[in-house]
């Protein structure tokens, strides 16, 4: 089990997505890359960043970043460490997190709303991920 927001953890996510035929099918039309921002809070005072490039049902790249300016991603998703943990453990529904602004999203919403299926396939695949949290 990999530790949240480490390169090892991202490698596991990439493998999970790339080995999952349901994700390949569900996200077959999706092209888009994401910058994820883990904002500091009282639990984790230091921010961290990672990047994922999702392309036609595959994860082409998943890397930790030292600085968010290293990439120019089409979409940006941010939340505090504690809220990421709640979302990934299922304690907080992702849709509700966005609606209550606990998770923020930037990017072309038309593109996302036209391919809800890809988002659902991604969430379903990630539900199988086991993550360790050090905080």
């Amino acid at each position, binding site marked *: 089990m990999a530790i949240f927001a480490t390169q090892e953890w991202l490698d596991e996510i990439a493998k999970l997505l790339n080995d999952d035929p349901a994700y390949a099918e569900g996200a077959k039309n999706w092209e888009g890359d994401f910058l994820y921002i883990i904002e500091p809070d009282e639990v984790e005072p230091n921010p961290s960043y990672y990047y994922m490039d999702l392309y036609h049902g595959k994860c082409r790249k998943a890397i930790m970043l030292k600085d968010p300016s290293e990439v120019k991603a089409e979409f940006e998703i941010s939340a505090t460490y504690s809220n990421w943990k709640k979302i990934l453990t299922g304690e907080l529904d992702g849709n509700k997190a966005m609606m209550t602004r*606990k998770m923020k999203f930037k990017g072309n919403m038309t593109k996302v*709303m036209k391919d809800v299926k890809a988002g*659902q396939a991604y969430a379903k695949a990630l539900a199988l991920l086991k993550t360790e949290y050090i905080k």
Partner: protein
Amino acid sequence: MWYFRNPLIVFGDDALEHLREIKGKRALIVTDAVLVKLGFVDKIAKELKHAGIEHRVFAEVEPDPSIETVRKGAQVALEYEPDWLIGLGGGSSMDAAKMIWMLYAQPDTEPYAIVPFQDYDARSKAHMICIPTTAGTGSEVTWFMVVTDTVEQRKIAVGTPEALPDIAILDSRLVGDMPKELVADTGMDALTHCVEGFGSTWRTDFTNGPALIAMKLIFKYLKRSYDDASDKEAREHMLNASALASMAWSNGMAGLAHNMGHALGGFFHVTHGRSVGLYLPYNMEYLAEAGAEVFAEAARFIGLEGKTDLELTLALVNGIKEIARHLGQPSSVKELKIDKAAYEKALPEMVERAVGEVSTPTVLRVPDEKDMERMFLYAYEGKVVDF
């Protein structure tokens, strides 16, 4: 953290008079040509005159309003610069009015891109009043909007809390002349709203109350409202039930009947209420075991009988079927005279759209594509869902 959002609700058989109290300069009334012809717009205009508010009418809303129509309406708003928008009519007119409001505030926004977590600053331009003339859509109390992409033959359901009307005026005089078919179609929509809102995994104490009261009112008054247009008590309670039902689902989530109904409506142009009402019993049969505890609570509340939770749930399903039969609603897709080959041709896309709707993961038993396809097929033939 969660929310229960609601407009100011003005109700009763003189509720339109509240329009005399509003402050402003110009109102744009968004409606359809039939309501202009029937004199409904004149009633609104008369009240606005008391308030010293001038008005203009955009009466081009069609059933299942298109993106082109709402863009045209937004252009009218941009030229007229109203400080109030008034959505007058059924769900189509009220949804169109809300969308026009959003596009008036943000003309460059794509309807597809309206989402709950972005700012549109709509109230810097105008405020919104919705006045329903049917008893079923409940759009007057929700922040959701359904418009049709005619190019992709697709209904798109979007929403933002900013699109919640400021005021909902439920004047029972406006639903007194509703034709029977409209009472039936919209009534089935209201029934679906409260059942789905109550059966959502996003249900809360605040949505359960309105859902249960709406269900009880609909079981008591929908048939009466359909049978006798002069039954003012039934028509008024159905108007109230419609708003309560929508408070329940819109502060929680809708469910599978809406997802399947939207897909069917996009391809075959079946009215919204008729299509969602048709699929509701099939969905409930699918959810019966997983949702027995929840649905049994509703069944008990409205006075149905059964020895176990499952029996009570099935009594609720049968009660819904009985109401639908009474209203002359189709009990299968086949009865809608939709060609089976055309239905099967559209099936893969309908399944994909229904599974892909945002409320699918929030039902008590989440179907995969295979189960969704089977539900569509069982509903075509009128078979009891036994899987």
